[in-house]
């Protein structure tokens, strides 16, 4: 009989155990990844983002919150059209960073 007893998994982002290797190595060649202000311009203009979950802004967050696999999966939606790089107010070279992540 199921009484409904269970231990719910924690929904916290476990910042103590997040593996930042990818993000940190990315940061070495692309120091501007730290400058994102999450304005959403990249996502708003994204061709792929119109029909998928693709959002560069969130990819950067995923890499910093231990969701690297999720980030890499999301990148597959990118079409490398370059519009995000055009609109980024921080001048982040998004196209290059996406290529570097999947490298």
């Amino acid at each position, binding site marked *: 009989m199921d009484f409904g007893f269970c231990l719910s998994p924690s929904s916290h982002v476990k910042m103590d155990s997040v593996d930042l290797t990818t993000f940190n190595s990315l940061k070495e060649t692309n120091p501007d990844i730290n400058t994102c202000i999450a*304005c*959403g*311009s990249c996502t708003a*203009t994204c061709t792929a983002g119109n029909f998928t979950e693709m959002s560069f802004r969130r990819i950067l967050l995923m890499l910093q919150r231990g969701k690297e696999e999720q980030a890499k999966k999301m990148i597959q939606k990118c079409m490398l059209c370059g519009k995000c790089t055009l609109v980024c107010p921080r*001048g982040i070279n998004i196209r290059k960073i996406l290529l570097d992540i999947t490298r």
Partner: protein
Amino acid sequence: MKENILIIGGGAAGMEAATQLQKLGQTPIIIEKSNALGGHVAQWDRLFPAFHPAKDVVEQMLANVKGVDVRMNTEVADIQRNENGFKAVLSDNTTIDAKAVVLATGFDLFNAERKQEYGYGIYNNVITSLELEKFFRTGKDERINNPKKIGFVHCVGARDVKVCNTYCSKVCCTTALKQACEMKEVFPDAEVYTFYMDLRMFGPGYEDLYLRTQKDFDVKCVRGRVCEVSEDMDGRLVIKAEDTLFGKPLKMTLDLLVLMCSMEKNKSIDAIQQKLGVANNSDGFMQIKDTYLGMNDTAKDGVFVAGTCTAPKSLPDTIAEARSVAVEVFNYINNR
């Protein structure tokens, strides 16, 4: 000692500095390139945070500045330093000897055409914050035709490396909310949206304005930067942004889009500034001597600065700086 002080610029900073210097027994001379005192404030209708008429402030300042030698429609054509201070040649060929110079040359509004994706100058219903103030003052603008949906875009020409302006322009956030409320006053049936990245309500009463904007005026604040504007068949504007809090791209049709243009340094003073040897900082504004204790000083002896020529500032900040520059100049003259 009573000395001539050359004040370049007859906006809020220049007028207030002249007022105080006159009270301190000096002889300020204002050089103003346009045909009126008041600068940008005179073009504004009402001021944040409490919707105070700009006209009242300007009129008070004009009354205070009475008796000051003001040269309207005049620019400084040349300036030289000599053993007595400075010798300035004006555009009307008169000369002025002064002990000290106060640069109160203010700002230029960012040219919104440079943000091509917003279509200012291409799409009829895209206007600037300054043009909206003019509408509030005069009630006239043929582009504002009983709009049902209005959008405000923050940070146009600010915090944007693509136009080489990485700084925050400080006052546009509060101005946008003020103007959004005013639009609701004029057009109560309209839906008003603002598109922001951060709402920087830094001054007394500003956060209250934000609260009123939401509560009393029902203005909707969307956290996301508008990245593209286009026009549909009826001449309405189609905008795209990401609703970053919802995490989805957003598309909306508007009747009017207001661009909150940033402040840039007034570049018409560059030649004179160069002659005085005053450098610019990395944001393109004039370099002050020290952030905390030398905000009115430049690296050059006898050359002082006040107001938005050194950074974007609110009107109260500008007036405070104009008053402090008067004290600085007074001490400079008396300690020489």
